[in-house]
Every structure is written in C-alpha cells, then in structure tokens.
C-alpha cells in the first residue's frame, strides 16, 4: 500500500477531523472526486454532502459537511466547512425531526416561490445528508 495522505476537516468552531487516510472521497460542486497520495494541487467548492475516507486500518469513515471548500495537495486534503460532523457525532433523532419539518414546510410552501422555499430546500438537503451519513451501513 502506498503512503497515506493527511485529511483535515476544520470548521470555525473546531477541527473535526485530523488524521491519516488512504483515500478520501468528497462531494465537489462539479462532481464527486477522490484523492489519493500524490494528487495534483486542486481547489474546489463543496456541496452539502458526505466525505468518505478510509483510515489507516482500512476502515471506512463518514463525515457530514455543510458545503465549504476543499483543497487537495500531493500529501494532504484540507476541508474548510461552515459545519461538519463525524458520523458518530450526528444526533440522528434531531436530524430526522429536522428532515420531517423541512419536508412538511416544503409541501406547504412549494406553491409560492420565495426565499423561504429556497431556505426550506437547503434545510431539507442538510437534514437528508445528515440522516444519510448517520445511517450509512458500514461494509
């Protein structure tokens, strides 16, 4: 196995992940991308979604990111996100109720297209990905 890369996920409040990984997959705004050691310098915005990575023991790990930026360098990946949570830190109950709320609001307000619609949709997106991150089955 080749060398590992360093993955760092930082939010304004704290550093969420800082460890070595074999491979990192991240949801870029123009498509998902994977990073291995020796990647060309690369910078992109991120969508709301899930970062997947394989840690040094080969176990797959998941981190929810609420948009942001990612920078890949040959030996490291740095993610700047407004918020991010590891799979085990996600409050599933809360995310589920947020999802339900967002769905209800969308159903009610999808008729008039105003900012609230956009906001509800963004909330739905976030909740959906949180739930998805938390419920992904490990293989």
């Amino acid at each position, binding site marked *: 196995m080749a060398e590992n890369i360093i993955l760092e996920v930082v939010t304004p409040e704290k550093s969420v992940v800082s460890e070595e990984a074999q491979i990192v997959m991240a949801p*870029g*705004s123009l498509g998902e991308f994977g990073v291995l050691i020796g990647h060309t310098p*690369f910078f992109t915005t991120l969508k709301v979604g899930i970062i997947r990575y394989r840690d040094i023991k080969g176990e797959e790990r998941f981190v929810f990111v609420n948009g942001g930026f990612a920078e890949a360098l040959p030996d490291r990946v740095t993610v700047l996100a407004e918020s991010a949570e590891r799979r085990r830190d996600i409050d599933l109950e809360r995310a589920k109720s947020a999802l339900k709320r967002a769905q209800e609001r969308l159903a009610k307000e999808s008729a008039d297209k105003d900012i609230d619609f956009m906001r509800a949709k963004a909330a739905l997106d976030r909740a959906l990905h949180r739930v998805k991150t938390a419920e992904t089955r490990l293989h």
Partner: protein
Amino acid sequence: MATLKDVKTKIGAVKKTKQITKAMNMVAASKLRGAQANMTGFRPYAGKFAEVLGSLAERGGSTATPLLTMREKISKINIVLCTSDRGLCGGFNSNLILKARSLVKEKSGSDIKVSFTNFGKKGRDWTRKNNFEIVSEYLGVVGGRFGFNVSVNAGKKLIDGFLNGEYDEVYVIYSEFKSTAKQIPVIKQLLPIPPLEASGKTEDAKKQYLPEHICEPTPAELLDEMLPKNVYVQIYSALLETSTSEHAARMAAMNNATKACNDMIDSLTLAYNKARQASITADLMDIVGGAEALKG
C-alpha cells in the same frame, strides 16, 4: 467618631462585597479560558481561509464584484458595534462606545446618515439613547456561547443591505484581545472589502501557492463565493475577540475591586481597633478614677 458597632457592621458589609467580587473574578477567569479556547479553535480555519482567499484574489486579478468596489459617493454607513451585554467590566464598554462616537464624528461631517448593527446590550442602549437608527440588534451573543451561524445571519443581512444600497460602507468596531491586561478597541472596514493581500506570507510562499492549482469552478467564481464568507469570518472573529476581551476586562475590574475591598477592610479594622482601645482606656480611667475617689 463612629461607634464600635457601626464600624463592625461596615466591615461585615465590605467583606460580603469582597466575596462577591472575588467570585465574579473567578467566574470571569473560567469564562475567559473558554473564550480563549474558542479563539484557538478558530485559528486554523481563519488562517487557511485568509491564505486561500489572498492567493485567489491575486490570481483572479482585478475582479469587479460589487463587494470589492468602492462607491464614489458615500452617504449612508452602517456601524457594527460589538459590546458586552453586562457591565461591571471597567472601562471596557465605554472605550468601545468612545471609538464609535469618534467614528461617527469623523464621518458625519458631510451629511452622512449613520445606522447601527448592535451586538451587545450596552452598545444598543447607547445607540438608542443617541437616537441613531438600529438596523438589527443581537443580544446574548457576546460573552456567551455562540456559533458561526450567528455571524452568517448578521453578515447576510449586512451584505444584502450593502448590495441594495441601504449603506455604502460598513464598519465593525470590536475589542481586540491582546492579553489579559490589554484590550484595544479597533475599527475595521467590513464592506466594501478592503483590497486583499496574501497576509503573513513571504514572497516565495506566495508564488508557489495556489497558482498551479486546478480550480473548480474558475478562480473568479470561487472568489465570488468566498467573499461573502470572508465577511462572516470577520464578524465571527470580531465577536470572539470581543467576548474574550470582555471576560478579561471583567476579571481585571473584579481583581481591582477585590483589592480595594482589602484596603478598605484594613483601614476599617484599624479604625475599629482604635475605637475599641479608646473605649477600654476610657473604662480604665473610670475605674481608676472611682478607686481614687474611694480612697480619698
């Protein structure tokens, strides 16, 4: 001459005050530790953000986004004033308000309309008393627990207002935390965003940084997306700095108050002892006088 009992009551009262100031000092100290931890937690994000933004700005060249463009005529400004919600922290809030006052004075020469965005009750009260327009106020933020979303909400509102032409310039006034003994009120221009530089980087590092990166989407588009975030980052950092400064200022103020209490207790105890000695002497004189009289 105060009676013995009066002095004793006074000493008791001062001792109680001292207990309170001492407790407040310790509370502020522990909150200061928390606030400093928040600041340390923010540093990696802020550092990386500034680095990336700086090099993108350099690479994107002269972008003509509205957020960067200076307006020719400035007739409306908004001041984001960060103060604390609570007092008992020495000159902390008055220093910030003084800074706001001087900024208003400096700007209001040529019929400029000034409005405020207030973080913290003390600044809000001052703004209200002086009849300035308050665009929005956020209480219970500074000095407490708050997340990045607070600054995102405030920042969005400011950016919207700026783009709609409600204000032509936005400034933020906050207290910069230098050390536990030193906090300085600072004025910073928030909008239009002052010219960006790859800060804290040497020339060499600047050159070998982003230029070879593949960017997705283009650097100019990335910059467009990052500029509003830069405003949020600035506000967040101002709030963190002000919170930390508040606790430091309160700690110092309460420390002084405790010392003052000690001095007062000392001088009152002296007075108490003197009074007691005086009454003992008087009693003795009486007894001696009585004994002399009996002898005679």
